[in-house]
């Protein structure tokens, strides 16, 4: 693909876990725990994986969903407040093409014995590489979905 384009977008995902913020944070920071839910959650054969959880530290992985296509994930941790939040920048590549560069924030809020997690991703989506063939969706549907995303963003901001 020779077309160069950048699309900026952001979204928020919210989850409530029946666990303390310390337990949720440990699941992110402990390599063995992280391996179980994060690294292997997509069940992709893993070619390479490194994890250095500290500010300025890197996490990088090479995965192959089908044994031929290679997906690279490269993360740098920008901010870590134990049991509270993590901010990291990451890029994704498919083969030799970078498809996105994002800033992600994970926030943990204590709610009684539970934890409310907010995952916010703000991304630059590059060259339309993720794009699937045109789908049978009206223009209005698309824009309404975007408006909903936007309201989610402002509601949780």
């Amino acid at each position, binding site marked *: 693909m020779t077309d160069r*384009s950048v*699309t*900026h*977008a*952001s*979204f928020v*995902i919210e*989850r409530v*876990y*029946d*666990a*303390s913020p*310390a*337990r*949720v*944070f*440990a*699941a992110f*920071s*402990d390599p063995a*725990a992280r391996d*179980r*839910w*994060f690294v292997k*959650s*997509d069940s992709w054969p893993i070619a390479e994986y490194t994890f250095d*959880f*500290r*500010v*300025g*530290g890197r996490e990088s992985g090479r995965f192959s969903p089908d044994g031929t296509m290679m997906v690279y994930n490269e993360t740098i941790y920008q901010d*870590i*407040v*134990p*049991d509270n939040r993590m901010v990291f920048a990451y890029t994704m590549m498919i083969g030799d093409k970078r498809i*996105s560069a*994002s800033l992600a924030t994970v926030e943990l809020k204590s709610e009684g014995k539970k934890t409310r*997690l907010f*995952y916010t*991703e703000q*991304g630059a*989506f590059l060259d*339309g590489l*993720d*794009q*699937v063939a*045109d*789908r049978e*969706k*009206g*223009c*209005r549907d*698309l*824009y309404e*979905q*975007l*408006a909903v*995303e*936007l309201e989610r*963003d402002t509601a949780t901001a």
Partner: protein
Amino acid sequence: MFQALADPARRMMVDRLCRGPASVSELAGPLTMSLPSVMQHLQVLELSGLVHSRKIGRVRTCTIDRQVLTQAEQWISDRRALWERRLDALGEYLADNPEEPEPIQTAANQGSET
């Protein structure tokens, strides 16, 4: 892109353009604002890449770029699905591993001492 859709007047303009190309005065029709204000909103929409306009004679005709809408929507839904899956896996992991972790060494985790 999201900034462009953050304003209700601009959302009305996009909504109108979803039905087909329109002139600036057609876009201004349902809005209670001056023509210069409408032009300003149009400029924001054009900068976002969402709307294109072309002047033919005295009439400026605006059209929507469906490609831009599709790309943003596709990006969000793919990336959201990936993280929804991961965060669901985290929930399963937490349910299977109820023990509290050892208290953490804050300094080591923040990398301020190594």
